[in-house]
């Protein structure tokens, strides 16, 4: 069962199309955030190497030459092992990447395999040329998937993975009383006449309440409410005058999306 197939890309994200026809996007990490993660990792490696060095010199106090030998080899091994082993065994993350919410994945959206982690880390000898990761940095900047050469060879890329929780329910959804439902004939007309686009627009305007600047919010709500009142369903003026534009739209959304059946009031 193989699910990874075509993919398309933009500069900021990778779109995966699975065999089941599911499309999802992975946001790519910016070269700057990768550089910060690299600096963090370098600091960690230097710390570990120095720690090992001190320990080795203490153990080999009487044989400093062997001490140098062990330290040189350990330093060399750690500089490659750190990235390759951590990424391979720790779900594509080094400590620096984890702190900056970055992750290395296969370019099909699946986790990377151990050999990919090794290849992309061994290829650093080329990407780090001629100094300060110039080759790798430039190749990441011009690549559509922001891959350095090591990533291209290993078929991997670095994605951004900030923690996310499910969006919370919003204030305007479950109001107990909707004055528009006191006018069932107009409400039914509203439900029939409103296009899906208009309904989505109203819903989205309400959902984004806190993202809009107060002035913009007031203007957008005023225009939307005026449009609905003038073009779609005219509720009585004595009711509308008592409502703010926002409340008007909340009531409209309640009519459009509400699951209560609209029926003529008794009596």
């Amino acid at each position, binding site marked *: *069962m*193989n*699910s990874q197939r075509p993919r398309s890309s933009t500069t900021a994200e990778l779109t*995966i199309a*699975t065999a*089941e026809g*599911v*499309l*999802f*996007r*992975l946001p790519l990490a910016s070269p700057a955030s990768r550089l910060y993660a690299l600096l963090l990792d370098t600091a960690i490696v230097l710390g570990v190497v120095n720690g090992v060095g001190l320990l080795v010199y203490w153990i080999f106090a009487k*044989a*400093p*030459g*062997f001490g*140098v*030998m*062990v*330290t*040189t*080899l350990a330093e*060399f091994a750690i500089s490659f092992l750190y990235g390759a082993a951590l990424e391979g*065994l720790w*779900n594509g993350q080094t400590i620096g990447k984890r702190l900056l919410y970055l992750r290395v994945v296969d370019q099909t*959206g*699946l*986790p990377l*395999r*151990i*050999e*990919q982690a*090794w*290849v992309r880390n*061994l*290829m650093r*000898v*080329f990407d780090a040329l001629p100094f300060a990761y110039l080759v790798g940095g430039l190749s990441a900047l011009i690549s559509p998937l922001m891959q350095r*050469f090591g990533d*291209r*060879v*290993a*078929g991997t890329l670095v994605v951004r*993975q900030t923690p*996310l*929780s*499910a*969006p919370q*329910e*919003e204030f305007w*959804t*479950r109001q107990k009383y909707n004055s528009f439902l006191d006018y069932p004939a107009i409400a039914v007309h509203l439900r029939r006449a409103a296009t*899906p686009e208009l*309904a*989505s627009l109203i*819903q*989205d305007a309400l*959902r984004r309440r806190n993202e809009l600047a107060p002035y913009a919010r007031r203007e957008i709500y005023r225009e939307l409410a005026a449009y609905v009142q003038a073009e779609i369903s005219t509720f009585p003026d004595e009711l509308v005058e008592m409502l703010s534009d926002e409340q008007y739209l909340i009531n409209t959304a309640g009519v*459009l*999306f509400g*699951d209560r059946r609209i029926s003529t009031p008794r009596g």
Partner: protein
Amino acid sequence: MILDLQRFQAQARPRWNKLESLLAVLEGRPDHRMNLAEADQLQDLYAQAASDLNRVTHGALAPDLRQYLERLVARAYAELYFAPPTRSDIWQPRRWLRIFTAFPETFRRQSRYFALAVLITVLGSTLGGLAVRYDPTSVDVLLPADYLRNPGERVHKEEQGDNRHPYSTQMEAAFSAELIRHNINVALLAAALGVTFGIGTALLLFENGVLLGAVAVRYAQQGFGLFVTAWLLPHGAFEIPSILIAGQAGFYLARLLLRRREDRDVRHSMREWLVLVAGLALMLVWAGLIEAFFSQHHAPVVPYGLKLAVGAAELVLLTLYLLVIGRKEPVAIAHVATPAETN
């Protein structure tokens, strides 16, 4: 279709929560193994989350909800379609020891790239040697260090043991580590330069060859042929082949990148490249140790005959190892065409 996001979320939230907690359990397991019931449940919840994502993508503008669902679907997708190696797989010594047979096997499978590396090095050393032989002015350009240009003094010092330090074993140990690190770095670069479609690899091998040819001819011209052979052969028997194998890995990578994307078997190729690199790194560890601890001792301490014999023995053993180990006996199977094949 009008999608009431809030009602939709309220209805779907329980199954998203369920999927999240199932994923948390599965991702937390070291081996990521799941039983049949879990696999069933994951498949169901994945399909539902994917369809929810589809509705959000096409039904309404809800970037935060869409992002959340995309993340959830991506995690479930990875869990369903990716089988990570188990810890027991990774820590099995036998698996790691397989490198000793996999290396010569891979070397033989990709031998044409090795032949190319040899060809370029031989070309370089021939040119280097001829230049030094027939154009004395080229010596200054090709051999920048004085001890390479005028080996007499160096040979004299080496043979007298003037360069040797009272704590020589200590120095040799430190020297060997430096050699190992430097040589592996150069070899790794040659293998990685395959991404320049092999041009970088070829230049590196060529330059190496020129230097080798020039040094050999210069020393031979001045009558130190035996000295230089005895000096270089014990570690060169491993060092030079390993640089050639690095070139082989580089050309192999170049060939892979020149293939059309759909013709590449990236997973298999990466393994081949890694095995070559791992094998040559091991060879260079040996070469570094020999170079520091053995090659630097000269006659009369270590007779040249012995050094040459050791070097030659290494070369023979290495050749046998690369050509024989892992080779399976050819099994004679009479090939009978089945009806399906003949049709």
